[in-house]
């Protein structure tokens, strides 16, 4: 049974698109058929981060409106087999996405892919709700910083009220906290909220900690998902996130990861 995962945060600029690209690529690297959908209608950027911006012809809204079919809109990644991207539209019409339209597209994708990753726009408006509505699980991206933590809590509230699972009284959306742009040195100095602090406040299980890393900017500059950069500490951390998400214990590394040091798994 295909699983739908929303990557969400409320606040902008915390790493939703970086995570969507990295996580989807990490799954596909294992040979799992994965598609990543950009729900940020009007401000599409997943294509740039994935390095396929020049191959976009049809998009999600075109498919919903029947202006192009799904196979025309899906972009096959050139580096990783079994990885596909469904870009967002650049239309300014905010209501271009409808629940009915999104449901129709997801139904077809579910037959073909094992994981469907939905990259949510920032905010708590229509687009964010469209991205989370059908989700089975959520990656809540949080920076160790007050506004991001508060917004994440707001998103937790919405996942518990505005999703298909909540409305139909089904088992709730499974929540995973992902702490990004983490700077151990600043945490040790008492300048930055620690991973333990953030889990105490939000009370969501921690899936992983991604260190602040120069390699993330290099990766997006060149349109390479960070999980394809084997040298990058952030890339390694994302691969561990994928492993933990699939229920594995990530392999021991020479240099222990932040997550292992703090949460001991």
């Amino acid at each position, binding site marked *: 049974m295909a699983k739908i995962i929303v990557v969400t945060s409320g606040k902008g600029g915390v790493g939703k698109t970086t995570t969507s690209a990295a996580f989807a690529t990490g799954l596909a690297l294992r040979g799992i058929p994965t598609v990543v959908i950009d729900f940020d209608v009007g401000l599409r950027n997943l294509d740039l981060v994935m390095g396929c911006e020049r191959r976009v012809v049809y998009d999600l809204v075109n498919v919903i409106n029947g202006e192009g079919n799904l196979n025309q809109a899906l972009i096959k990644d050139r580096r990783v087999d079994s990885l596909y991207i469904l870009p967002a539209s650049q239309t300014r019409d905010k209501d271009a996405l409808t629940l009915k339209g999104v449901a129709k597209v997801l139904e077809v994708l579910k037959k073909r892919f094992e994981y469907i990753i939905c990259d949510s726009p920032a905010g708590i408006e229509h687009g964010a709700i469209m991205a989370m509505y059908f989700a089975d699980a959520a990656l809540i991206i949080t920076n160790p910083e*007050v506004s991001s*933590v*508060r917004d994440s*809590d707001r998103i937790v509230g919405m996942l518990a009220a505005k999703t298909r699972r909540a409305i139909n009284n089904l088992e709730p959306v499974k929540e995973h906290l992902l702490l990004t742009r983490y700077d151990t040195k600043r945490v040790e100095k008492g300048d930055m909220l620690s991973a333990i*602090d953030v889990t*105490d*406040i*939000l009370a969501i299980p921690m899936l992983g900690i991604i260190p602040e890393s120069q390699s993330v900017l290099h990766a997006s500059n060149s349109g390479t998902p960070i999980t394809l950069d084997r040298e990058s500490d952030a890339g390694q951390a994302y691969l561990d996130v994928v492993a933990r998400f699939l229920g594995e214990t990530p392999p021991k590394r020479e240099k222990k990861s932040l997550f292992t040091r703090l949460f001991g798994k």
Partner: protein
Amino acid sequence: MNLLSYFQNQNSQTHNTAAVAKERLQIIVAHARRQRDPSTLDCILPHLQQELLEVVRKYIMVDDDDIKINLERDGDYEILELNITLPEQELAKNEK
């Protein structure tokens, strides 16, 4: 304040701000969670305030900010405090 204490103050302001952040977040997040939890009084407060405002306005014109509702917790019990500020002119008229 001498120069030395100025620098000491500077230092204390930037020291361990993460602990301050945690404390502030715990308070605000707990408050937000009570507001969306249907089993708490906090959840009904915004509605109650709006409806009270409508009832009072049938008789006296008051501003949005003139009705204040406050919920305080003290051990096992909660105190619901309601404060309506009436405009002075309206009162004078009614007394005549």
